[in-house]
């Protein structure tokens, strides 16, 4: 999931306009930013597999994408923003945790409960109905965008260009159609031939 995470930041901004926009966008992607860094460092592991929705299988993701890790990262993010006020800290913390919650809807059973515990969760919408999962994410994006646009109409402290922002979000979502996904393209390019 990609645009769906970003859309969560829009819904949070509508609910907590005082929260810094950059912090909300960073919060909803934080688990993936950590995951990417840990994969590069060799601490978490993935391998290309074109039968997987993403084009990659997640072998070890316990420090970024386990339930316990997500809770710890969320509490850490909320603590980092505690001086900005309780509402902002809560919004940022929810932003970080929303990543795990949304991933759990679509990922196959590859999100562990905690580091070192092999039991993993994931409703596997990607595996059961790939294009439906993409459509479901699109519906989430549309709903969050509607909440954001409506709130921005009444609160002039944010949302200066709602139409353009929604267009960018739509382009991001379309570029992650299973057939167009940059991750799948990278996996196809980097998978050794038979």
């Amino acid at each position, binding site marked *: 999931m990609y645009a769906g995470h970003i859309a969560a930041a829009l819904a949070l*901004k509508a609910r907590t306009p005082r929260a810094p926009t950059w912090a909300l966008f960073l919060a909803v*992607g*934080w688990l*993936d930013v950590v995951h*990417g*860094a840990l994969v590069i460092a060799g601490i978490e592991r993935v391998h290309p597999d074109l039968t997987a929705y993403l084009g990659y299988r997640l072998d070890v993701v316990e420090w970024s994408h386990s339930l316990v890790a997500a809770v710890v990262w969320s509490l850490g993010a909320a603590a980092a923003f505690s001086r900005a006020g309780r509402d902002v800290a809560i919004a940022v913390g929810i932003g970080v945790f929303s990543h795990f919650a949304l991933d759990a809807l679509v990922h196959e059973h590859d999100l562990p409960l905690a580091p070192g515990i092999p039991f993993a969760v994931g409703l596997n919408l990607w595996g059961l109905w790939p294009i439906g999962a993409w459509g479901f994410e699109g519906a989430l994006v549309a709903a969050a965008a509607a909440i954001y646009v409506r709130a921005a109409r009444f609160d002039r402290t944010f949302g200066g260009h709602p139409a353009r922002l929604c267009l960018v979000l739509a382009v991001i979502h379309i570029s992650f159609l299973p057939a167009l996904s940059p991750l799948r393209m*990278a*996996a196809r390019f980097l998978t050794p031939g038979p």
Partner: protein
Amino acid sequence: MAAMVYGLLVMAGFLIPIPILVRLDRPRRVQAPPSAAEH
């Protein structure tokens, strides 16, 4: 190599759009009303 490309794409996918999205979220500048001297 494949894992490194994956890691970079996943990080960039969230970090690169942030400045663009933040700019689009900024409130519109409200034009100041003309001053009395201009009337």
